[in-house]
């Protein structure tokens, strides 16, 4: 369980993280989604006690991370897969973590096997690793202490599609076992594939959060009509939000309402359905583009599902 409360982090006049609040629950994979520079890494660094917040707080398992006596045994952290000493072998990197945590030496080989690094690969120096191998090594380090919580910053970077599927299964198993997973990504597709809950952040602020299902549903309805402009106008006139999407429109009205509006306007509809993940993507692009354009605007559209 991770709780972030009104977390703010400023660098001089620049606010990198702005009043961010969310929780990541046990048994769930929480995806922390936002474009580059949104403030994900900064939030996670504060969470792991590596940066001090300007205000607000972050706790893991009810305690400040820095107050955990032996954090590796409770929280597995991977903040940057390339932040490893290039002159050490992969195995040696794990041995250092294993000794620091006071674990039996056998855990090293178990972890290597768990992430699919062969003994030959483990003997090579990290300098010669691909990004994908570094991610696996970083995840092995995070899993070494058999923690209850995982905090992973962009862990899918550099993984091939098979690697991403492997990671999804690994995190799924971890969460099904009652573990808490918080992972960040700047790619919606990754988060959609892996996460149960989504926290979307743009320019340091949370712009949407909820379960993935809620956010998908929240993306609204796709309406395709012979006269798509008139359809959009009718929906807007009825007080719904409208976003053009090719030869169709997306609206925040649910399908039944949208159908009645179309019927009332006398417009023939060629397609009417709850919009799929592409709608979430539109929202992701739109919300993050909006916050990126105008970071100071308080009128950022915000969507909040029931707290997970």
């Amino acid at each position, binding site marked *: 369980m991770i709780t972030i409360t009104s977390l703010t982090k400023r660098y001089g006049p620049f606010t990198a993280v702005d009043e961010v609040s969310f929780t990541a629950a046990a048994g769930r994979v929480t995806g922390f989604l936002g474009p580059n520079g949104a403030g994900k890494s900064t939030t996670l660094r504060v969470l792991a006690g590596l940066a001090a917040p300007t205000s607000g707080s972050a706790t893991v398992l009810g305690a400040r991370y820095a107050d*955990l006596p032996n954090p590796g045994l409770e929280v597995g952290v991977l903040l940057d897969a390339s932040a490893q000493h290039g*002159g050490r072998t992969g195995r040696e990197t794990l041995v250092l973590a294993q000794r620091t945590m*006071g674990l039996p030496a056998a855990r090293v080989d178990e972890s290597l096997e768990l992430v699919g690094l062969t003994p030959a690969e483990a003997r090579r120096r990290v300098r010669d690793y691909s990004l994908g191998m570094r991610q696996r090594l970083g995840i092995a380090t995070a899993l070494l202490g058999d923690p209850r919580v995982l905090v992973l910053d962009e862990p899918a970077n550099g993984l091939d599609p098979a690697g991403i599927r492997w990671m999804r299964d690994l995190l799924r198993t971890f969460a099904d076992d009652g573990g808490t997973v918080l992972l960040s990504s700047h790619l919606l597709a990754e988060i959609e594939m892996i996460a149960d809950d989504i926290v979307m952040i743009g320019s340091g602020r949370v712009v949407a959060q909820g379960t993935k299902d809620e956010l998908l549903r929240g993306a609204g309805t796709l309406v395709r009509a012979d006269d798509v402009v008139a359809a959009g106008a009718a929906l807007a006139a009825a007080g719904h939000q409208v976003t053009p999407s090719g030869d169709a429109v997306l609206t925040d009205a649910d399908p039944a309402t949208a159908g009645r509006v179309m019927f009332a306007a006398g417009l023939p509809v060629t397609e009417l359905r709850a919009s799929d993940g592409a709608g979430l993507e539109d929202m992701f692009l739109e919300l993050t583009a909006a916050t990126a354009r105008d970071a100071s605007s308080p009128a950022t559209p915000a969507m909040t599902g029931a707290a997970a």
Partner: protein
Amino acid sequence: MTAVTAPAAPRGASRPRPTVPVPLGRLAGVELRKIFDTRSGLWLAVSVAVVAVGSAALLVALESPESFSYQFFVHSIDYPVHLLMPMLGVLAVTSEWSQRGALTTFALVPRRGRVLAAKALPLAGVAVATMLLTFACGVVATLVGAATGGVDAVWDMSLDEHLRMLAFSLLSMAVGFVVGVVLRSSPAALVAYLLFVLVVPSLSSALAASLDWYRDAGPWVELTSAQYELYGDVMTAEQWAQLGTASLLWLVLPFVLGVRRLLRVEIR
């Protein structure tokens, strides 16, 4: 779609939560390992040993046997050895930042002061071991030099001198460590270290030659020269005091400021 299933028990809930902080001794063991488990660290350590043995051999082969004595060998071997050795102290700190391992190190042990103490302990051990190696090379060189040069073996160092050489070694390591703590970048700290031990002393004597007031003040503020007084047959109370003030200025003060910064700085 995805069913929201609450698991029966959170992962690991049956295990007791850890209550014991990572012990300093164990952490010092890890840091000792980190000094030698990289290519750069290993090569540096090997060079220290090679330089000790190599300079002993060269001295025996090239110097005239009349100058041979245990103290002669120890002092001559010691200079290059203790120029190199503190670089291990520099890198023990800076490689965390330059190679970015600090992200993992401090995530596993958020008590940064404890990590720093755990780095200092094995470095002190390395300083003592290096000095013992120099003594050993001195003994062998004295014996071999006496045999090959046809002279008597001269043992001319008291216990007191040995102890002061040990202090010298620890101070040298402290210089490297402090430069690392203050600068936290391998290239910058290595350059600064070499400037400090090679260039500053000659600058200081040049100043002393031209400025009257500095001739008197210099010994109180210039660390490297004050440190080399430890080499002498005896050391006066004034020399100890000068070593004290110079250390305060160049070791204690920067260390305090550097640690304060290091405890707060954002690890990225």
